[in-house]
């Protein structure tokens, strides 16, 4: 396809692409795109194949249908979106979240169509809102560029045919409100206390999730949808391994994550970044790259390692994600609330109802900052520190996982108190509640307890 247009109509035929075009083709091929004109392997129609998926060359239409099929399958087979839901899509403006926006919008349009056509109109149609977390406080980009990016985002959302519920542009520092009036200063200060570059980046990631949760809670959303794709998850798998977070890793690579107040769903988990970029290009979906966050430290090293692996084997990302999927997920990686599946089509319902509910009780202890579940050794550590805890800070420290302890908590122990006082109350408040209820319980049963040194 590219070769045919390469001569620019100079009449020298499709077999003589100039050198520059050959080089371009090589790059294009690496991106999963076919440069040779071949027929689509699925529809067999006249359209030339433009992309490869599952070893078959697909035309633009089929490629789109292929990706949409994956998206829809993960949404329906995991009961991600119910008719009564209000979905908040985390939108960065990048290709992955752009495609997620397009697809969920498409699903909603179809649902509205069938709602219009149905006689009873008994079931409502889910609603969609878009959230963009504005981190301009921490990046050194000129204001003008940031304004442009935000304008881009607004125009992308407003261009959709069926309107979304709302577009929320929330500055990251809002996570500190309402308890602090100077959110910006507090954000800068707390980030400044973290020495490790990787730690800083991971901490911001946690704040981002908190920000999304806050928007969702304040505006009545019932689900948060992320655009995390297979490539991003592959990077996460390796960086979590490298950071010693092997135990909690399976929690982060599933379709559904209900450990947060508002459950998080990841419908693009099976799509590669290059495919999503290609789709944006083919369908001329507008994206914005002004506010791309450069990654640092270990996360960057992992990303460049994966890039290198891809040169040797383009499907390596899939293999990495598949390995992580074989690990045992946690009980919070599925929807288990009573009546949750009632709105599902009857043919799907048995699938979820047959799931054994042995471990449906949510008993994992989660890290105060990153929310990763504690491994057995971390639990033991926590228990022993909690018993010795004198101050509230000791309690907070005990509730941080080993990785956060190393890369996020400030290096001097005397700074802990200050650090924890700066954190959003949303995090520290949870530990306060737990410890308060624990001590209340202890008070009630005190007379029956034996001292530790009695045995």
């Amino acid at each position, binding site marked *: 396809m590219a070769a045919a247009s390469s001569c620019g109509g100079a009449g020298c035929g499709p077999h003589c692409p100039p050198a520059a075009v050959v080089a371009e083709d090589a790059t294009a091929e690496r991106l999963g795109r076919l440069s040779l004109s071949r027929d689509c392997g699925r529809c067999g129609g006249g359209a030339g194949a433009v992309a490869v998926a599952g070893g078959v060359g697909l035309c633009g239409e089929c490629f789109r249908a292929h990706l949409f099929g994956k998206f829809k399958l993960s949404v329906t087979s995991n009961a991600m979106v119910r008719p009564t839901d209000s979905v908040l899509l985390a939108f960065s403006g990048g290709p992955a979240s752009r495609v997620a926006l397009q697809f969920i919008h498409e699903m909603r349009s179809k649902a509205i169509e069938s709602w219009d056509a149905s006689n009873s109109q008994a079931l409502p149609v889910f609603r969609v809102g878009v959230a963009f977390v504005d981190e301009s406080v921490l990046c050194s980009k000129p204001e003008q560029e940031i304004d442009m990016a935000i304008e881009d985002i607004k125009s992308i959302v407003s261009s959709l045919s069926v309107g979304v519920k709302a577009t929320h542009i929330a500055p990251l520092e809002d996570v500190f409100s309402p308890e602090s009036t100077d959110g910006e200063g507090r954000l800068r200060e707390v980030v400044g206390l973290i020495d490790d570059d990787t730690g800083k980046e991971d901490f911001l990631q946690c704040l981002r999730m908190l920000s999304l949760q806050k928007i969702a809670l304040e505006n009545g959303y019932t689900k948060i949808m992320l655009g995390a794709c297979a490539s991003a998850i592959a990077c996460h798998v390796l960086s979590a391994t490298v950071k010693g977070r092997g135990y909690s890793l399976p929690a982060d690579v599933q379709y559904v994550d209900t450990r947060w107040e508002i459950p998080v769903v990841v419908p693009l988990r099976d799509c590669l970044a290059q495919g999503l970029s290609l789709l944006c290009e083919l369908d001329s979906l507008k994206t914005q790259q002004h506010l791309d966050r450069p990654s640092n430290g270990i996360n960057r090293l992992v990303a460049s*390692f994966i890039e290198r692996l891809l040169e040797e084997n383009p499907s390596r990302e899939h293999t990495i994600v598949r390995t992580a999927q074989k690990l045992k997920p946690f009980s919070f990686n599925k929807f288990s609330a009573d009546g949750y599946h009632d709105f599902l089509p009857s043919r799907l319902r048995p699938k979820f109802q047959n799931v054994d509910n042995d471990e449906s009780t949510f008993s994992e202890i989660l890290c105060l900052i990153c929310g990763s579940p504690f491994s057995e050794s971390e639990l033991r550590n926590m228990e022993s520190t909690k018993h010795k805890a004198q101050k509230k800070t000791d309690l907070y420290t005990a509730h941080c996982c080993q990785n956060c302890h190393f890369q996020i908590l400030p290096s001097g122990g005397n700074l802990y108190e200050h650090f924890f006082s700066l954190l959003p109350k949303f995090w520290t408040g949870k530990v306060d509640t737990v410890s308060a209820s624990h001590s209340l319980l202890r008070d009630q049963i005190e007379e029956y307890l034996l001292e530790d040194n009695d045995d």
Partner: protein
Amino acid sequence: MDSSAVDGARQPPARAGSRLCTRCGERKAALKRPKTLEQICRECFYVVFEDEIHRTIVDNNLFKSGDRVAIGASGGKDSTVLAYVLSELNRRHKYGLDLFLLSVDEGITGYRDDSLETVKRNEIQYGLPLKIVSYKDLYGWTMDDIVKAIGLKNNCTFCGVFRRQALDRGAALLKVDKIVTGHNADDIAETVLLNILRGDIARLSRCTFITTGEDGPIPRCKPFKYTYEKEIVIYPYYAITHYSYILMSLCSTHQVYSYGIYSPNAYRGFAREFIKDLERMRPRAILDIIKSGENFRISTTTRMPEQGICERCGYISSQKLCKACVLLDGLNRGLPKLGIGRSKGMAGGDSDSEQQDKRSERNRSSLQGKHGNIDF
């Protein structure tokens, strides 16, 4: 077994800001410890290095008093340091072990000759009995013969498969209870990553075990599981200086065979480089990878390959014939590419059906050649 900490393990308060050893606070710091970046003196380095290995051995109950233990000695830095440290610790902490050196002679001219010399010197120096088992004796082929038969490509497969068995066979001859190998923390971290990259969940679950093959005849263990490669290099640099020269010259040779340009998995080299970069950025990353590997939640329903025994030689194998027998069969029948890689077409335009015929023929016929009648 004496598990009390050695004298130097007491931790006096460190004097911040000085160039004194952060551990003893008395002597001048001589090096930055690769594992923790602490500035410590030479004496303290020996102490922590040896003490950590001692702790690993004690905490994991690697040995019982009276065990006969073979040290897999390649003549490279890891196994030489292992032999030295293990014999020292055995003496110091009264483990009560009978230690042996066990070497494999692959028959690679110019490569093994030197390293076997090193091992022979170790035998005298540490007073450990040495047993050398050669490919020639076990399989009837030297590596040089194999390379002549199949060329430079794919010979790593033969060398690796044969070496694994040779060590076990040598150990059986020595009637030992355990084999120890010099695999270090870097090696284990690399294996964890590789198993993630290739999606091998069964291996991922067991590659961080400190002892493997406990249900087999001779378990293997890795006392260097938590020991950094860099520290293994530093240790002889000070402690057994006269060996270090030979060691260094050997490592480079070995690398060519393990990760060289002929290696079929280029990503193994990438992974090793990646780990080195990581270590520079965050030294504890190597231990963190091992920790991740130990803590992965691997479902108990994950299907593990069934361990059987080779019909021909009795060695553990998941197939009817063990890999060594398949490879050996190929060599002896003049089809050296049998058993390498997937069922690709063979060089010289052999068609798939032809190859299948050969395979089924191979399964029917017993090993007729004069070489390789091996019994385990």
